[in-house]
């Protein structure tokens, strides 16, 4: 078996490198970086990580716990596959990207990074494209349903290490798959960087669910670009949990390409201390008769900061569009900061759209009610904030996945209650 990367891929990496070098860095005044802390974009000194030693590998694999029953599980450390177990049914390809590039080059080429990155990180998408070496490639045939999720762990290990994890999921007609990416750091104190990209291509009448759990250590930064395209009658659900990282930028673009298709864009973020989460979304209704629903919820503690900028864009001819966008912020301190910029642009007729954002604090009466049942004030506030997040998590509608996500949510709340850094 050859292990040579296909020519198209090396050519694209070379072109991407040139594009990366030629594209100017975001600057003050760029609309897509409004309210952003541009100092976070200084990535000097980060280098691709070395292979992890075998002792550390065993430790990382042992810590890569997720849900009990998976269709496949992959563990990457610094973009190197260190563990895998698969129970994938016939008709499905689920491989590390490095293998898929060699064994299924045409299939990968057909779908690999086909959409333009338009929410601000074109430069970093180019960097990702130039540097990407691994990740997950999933391709399902028609009428294949994978019952249990495919779970992928991405670990960053070592000082100033940058990883470029890539997830590409392509579903065939009337198929069904669920993929979970979990991003973590091997320790709590070593700075790292992730420039992550995931591409979801939901084929006709298929159901594609994707969950990203971002629980990196609090001296690591991440840019995650999420691109989704839905064909006729397809349903794609993307969920992002942010509990970790010092700074996280999410750019989520959903292109509704087929009539009857649906995109659910969901996010829960729980920043504390000085954490900053910067989220930009785009619901692009290309086709008529499609449905998109975005619900992002942030619980902000201490001096944390969030930015939400969302746009619903309905193309000419995309009649009978239903599009909804909601961002809710729960302000858990007097010094946190939530910035919301919801937006709407409609160029078609008979469209149902709504967008809105709210920021609120927990009402004293709610706290009184819980305390009158004997629950102490810290726990009472935590229960209410957890409940605020649970409303989004429940939209996953898959018990094991919900439990996994809530485990990370509860870890974060325990961390906040403990005052730990």
């Amino acid at each position, binding site marked *: 078996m050859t292990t040579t990367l296909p020519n198209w891929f090396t050519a694209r990496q070379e072109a991407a490198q040139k594009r990366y070098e030629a594209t100017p860095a975001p600057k003050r005044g760029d609309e897509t970086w409004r309210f952003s802390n541009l100092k976070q974009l200084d990535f000097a000194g980060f280098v691709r990580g070395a292979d992890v030693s075998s002792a550390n590998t065993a430790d990382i694999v042992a810590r890569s716990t997720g849900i009990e029953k998976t269709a496949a599980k992959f563990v990457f450390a610094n973009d190197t596959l260190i563990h895998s177990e698969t129970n994938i049914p016939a008709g499905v390809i689920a491989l590390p990207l490095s293998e898929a590039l060699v064994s299924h080059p045409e299939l990968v080429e057909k779908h690999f990074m086909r959409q333009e990155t338009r929410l601000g990180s074109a430069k970093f998408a180019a960097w990702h494209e130039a540097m990407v070496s691994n990740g997950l490639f999933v391709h399902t045939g028609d009428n294949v349903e994978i019952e249990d999720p495919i779970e992928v762990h991405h670990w960053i290990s070592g000082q100033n290490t940058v990883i470029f994890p890539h997830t590409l999921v392509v579903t065939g007609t009337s198929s069904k798959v669920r993929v979970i990416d979990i991003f973590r750091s091997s320790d709590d104190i070593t700075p790292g960087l992730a420039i992550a990209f995931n591409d979801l291509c939901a084929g006709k009448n298929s159901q594609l669910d994707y969950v990203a759990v971002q629980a990196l250590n609090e001296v690591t930064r991440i840019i995650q670009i999420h691109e989704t395209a839905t064909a006729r009658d397809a349903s794609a659900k993307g969920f992002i949990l942010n509990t970790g990282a010092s700074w996280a930028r999410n750019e989520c673009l959903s292109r509704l390409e087929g009539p009857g298709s649906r995109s659910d864009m969901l996010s829960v973020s729980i920043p504390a201390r000085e954490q900053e989460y910067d989220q930009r979304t785009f619901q692009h209704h290309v086709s008529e008769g499609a449905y998109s629903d975005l619900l992002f919820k942030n619980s902000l503690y201490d001096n944390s900061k969030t930015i939400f900028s969302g746009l619903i864009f309905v193309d000419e001819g995309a009649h009978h569009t239903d599009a909804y966008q909601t961002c809710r912020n729960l302000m858990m301190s007097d010094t946190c900061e939530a910035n919301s910029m919801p937006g709407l642009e409609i160029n078609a007729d008979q469209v149902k759209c709504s967008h809105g954002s709210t920021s609120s604090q927990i*009402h*004293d*009466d*709610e706290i*009184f*009610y*819980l*305390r*009158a*049942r*004997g*629950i*102490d*004030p810290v*726990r*009472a506030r935590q*229960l*209410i904030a*957890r*409940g*605020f*997040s*649970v*409303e989004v998590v*429940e939209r996953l509608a898959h018990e094991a996945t919900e439990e996994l996500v809530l485990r990370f949510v509860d870890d974060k709340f325990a961390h906040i209650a403990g005052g730990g850094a």
Partner: protein
Amino acid sequence: MSLHIQNLHATLEDGTEILKGVTLEIPKGEVHAIMGPNGSGKSTLSKVIAGHEGYVVTGGAVTIDEEDIAEMSIDERSRAGIFLAFQYPSEVPGVSNANFIRAALQARLPKGEEIDAVAYYKSLYAKMDILEMDRKFTGRAVNEGFSGGEKKRNEILQMMMLEPKYCILDETDSGLDIDALKIVAKGVNAMRSPDRGMLLITHYQRLLDYIKPDHVHVMAEGRIVRSGGPELALELEKDGYEFLKEAALA
């Protein structure tokens, strides 16, 4: 052994005095009812006993079983055995009823001790059966989308699960139709015990047809102005609170 309110004075944060010297003793084993016109301070009394931070106690004392609760926080009072069934229970989105009650029970256990989940659900279901509550209420978010009657039943469910020493029911009958009232009364009556004192706050005698009080008190303008047996409630139902005006004029 009693819930003892002694010459209790309380104001709003702006200084407006609401309770102007309330004295009342509810011994264990007894059910007392407070009736009175709107604005007489009945609900305020219940909140002040529960420790609501929107009021300032400016005089007097509340003790349970001879222990002064002045220094206890809201949640400490609850854990010490005081239960307030709310007139308007809050909604807690995203927190299931079962998890909420479990958290309240967990708060009563020593650190490190966990509730036995099997025994917990057995107990919860038994009490829900008494209150004729559908099992689906365990998974639903606390009070969210509940009807008025469902919320009140849910208050009684919490009371039954927490087994407090002293229960204060603030207008538990308001907004209930007769069937719901009977069910709620059934739950409250099941809680009557020589080890428990109860204080019912109500506008209407109707509730007292189903939960028979040992003593009835009338509250007006921040004080208890009359006390008597169950017959006092019937008298009030017949004659209203006119006597208060007459007393004021005299």
